[in-house]
């Protein structure tokens, strides 16, 4: 781990949400960097950015329930030489204030770091108004924007630390609750734009981001034991810039790829990966799993992940389905995917 970074024991991290770990990390960074300021729109408590307020009340702004103003002020502070960390729910960052993020922050290529919480369907019972299954699609279409979806709390901490010195705007998307941690060693190397192989495999590659990474790793272990399948799992924490090398390696070595994300299948991880594959001209069996192009339903997050086939069972089912299809084995295209 880099000198001066937060050191987590997994025991500590395991009982904290990704947002809580973010709050702690930001306080740590604030101790060292006077240019860091924090902003929210009446969600200091929910997004855990309030820890920064407690420690540095003079470098904290709460604009009330006014997200357009939130991101405009963030842009102004960045123009004044600060590095603003701006937190609200993903749906408000990407949609309510989408134009401010695009025009005021990305167009001017400002050093604003957006930490958006309650993404995907992680705020399950709150319902569709508070789910956010569109943000990756929106954010990755903004030029200059870097888009990161950490797999767990430890990775959130690493992403937050890495983004401080990453020039330009960064969008880090986290969930709401106690996502299980995936990275068993807190000292692993994290680099923006570089996917991480979580499980080796040669039969098929599962590329996942966010909470889906845990399900993918879990499923790979089950599939190895029960089906004798060798499933490669990639934690694609950076959606933009996407890691083309790790995708093309998977295309050549496993020829079958499935993506999993807590996001509409249009425009997010699956789209980003498919763009790389199609532009390469190489053949590959491919399937995207996420929220279908419809509005999400209400429920406990774990039930929703099950419903949308984003939990361990969903990954197992999808991998078996894709492995059961033939790929370039014969002339019959009907049974291929």
């Amino acid at each position, binding site marked *: 781990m880099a000198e001066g970074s937060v050191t987590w024991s997994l025991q500590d991290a395991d009982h904290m949400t990704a947002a809580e770990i973010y709050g702690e990390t930001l306080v740590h960074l604030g101790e060292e960097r006077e240019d860091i*300021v924090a902003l929210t729109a009446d969600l200091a408590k929910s997004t855990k950015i309030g820890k920064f307020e407690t420690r540095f009340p*003079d470098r904290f702004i709460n604009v009330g329930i006014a997200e357009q103003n939130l991101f405009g002020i963030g*842009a*102004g*502070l960045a123009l004044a030489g600060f590095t603003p960390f701006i937190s609200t729910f993903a749906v408000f960052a990407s949609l309510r204030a989408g134009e401010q993020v695009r*025009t*005021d922050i990305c167009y*001017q290529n400002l050093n604003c770091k957006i930490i958006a919480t309650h993404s995907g369907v992680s705020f399950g019972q709150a319902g569709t108004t508070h789910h956010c299954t569109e943000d990756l699609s929106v954010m990755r279409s903004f030029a200059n924007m870097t888009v990161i979806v950490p797999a767990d709390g430890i990775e959130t901490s690493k992403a937050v630390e890495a983004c401080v010195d990453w020039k330009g705007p960064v969008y880090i998307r986290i969930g709401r609750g106690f996502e299980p941690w995936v990275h068993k060693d807190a000292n692993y190397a994290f680099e923006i734009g570089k996917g991480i192989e979580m499980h080796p495999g040669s039969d098929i590659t599962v590329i996942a981001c966010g909470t889906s990474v845990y399900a993918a790793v879990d499923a790979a272990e089950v599939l190895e034991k029960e089906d004798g399948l060798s499933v490669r799992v990639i934690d694609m924490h950076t959606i933009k810039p996407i890691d083309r090398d790790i995708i093309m390696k998977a295309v050549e070595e496993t020829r079958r790829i499935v993506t999993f994300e807590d996001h509409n299948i249009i425009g997010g991880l699956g789209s980003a990966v498919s763009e790389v594959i199609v532009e390469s001209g190489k053949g590959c069996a491919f399937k995207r799993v996420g929220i279908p192009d419809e509005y999400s339903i209400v429920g406990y997050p774990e039930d929703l992940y099950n419903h949308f086939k984003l939990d361990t069972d969903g990954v197992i089912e999808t991998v078996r389905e894709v492995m059961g299809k033939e790929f370039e084995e014969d002339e019959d295209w009907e049974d291929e995917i």
Partner: protein
Amino acid sequence: MALSESELKALTEKAHQLRKDVIQTVAWSGGGHAGGALSQLDLLVALYYKYLNIDPSNPEKADRDRLVLSKGHGGVGYAPVLADKGYFKKELLQTFNHTGSSFGMHLDKNKVPGVDASTGSLGHGLSIAVGLALGAKFSGKKWLTYCIMGDGEQHEGSIWEAAMSAAHYKLDNLIGIIDNNKLCIDGPLNEIMNVSPLDKKWEAFGWKVRIIDGHNFNDICDAIEEAQAFSGGPFIIIAQTVKGKGVDYMEGAKEWHYGGLDGEMTRKALESIDRMYAGK
């Protein structure tokens, strides 16, 4: 305090020359927001030739005063001022709006020296200005932030979000100016969507308000000095202006929100400006 005769003369002469530069730039650009460019001009002249602490040879000087032209379509009336101040060569104005030029109708901070924030989408500028003013407070710096808004822009809800926050944070280093020319694209402002009474609205949002004649330098300068001296909260100057000021066929005409100028129209516009300054 009233301006000395020489100061008034200098500002008036500068405004005369810049009005003509604006018309030339609109002509070169093939089309521009001439009406709003001329209504805001005297406000820009007072700020750039009397008040702003800036150094055109060092556009990013850390302690410079900041100006956010929230009515970004006023760019065709802003670039000539920046050129005249020496931020870039005046000849570059001839490329305005041309393909590949640094100058589009809404100025880009990353392409045009002297611009403190890229603007164009209405209702954004005041929030950015609030951020700049907060930045000065956070770092204990004395520079001021000015934000020039359009009156039609007052329709945007985000303006009022920003207004609320500037008062909440007692930003007495932020000075708002409304170019109140009373016309938006589709017609008279208050027929499209009534914004009156602007002064009471801003007052209710916690700002100190002053209404002035936006084409009278004594009025403008007096208000800016009052705003600079005011402490405890943000200050807004509502400048009563005339859209197209100085060009007889443009004054008060909604058709001149945006338009192009051929040779004859340009000549007539320049003559009209000369007549106004000759008092005829």
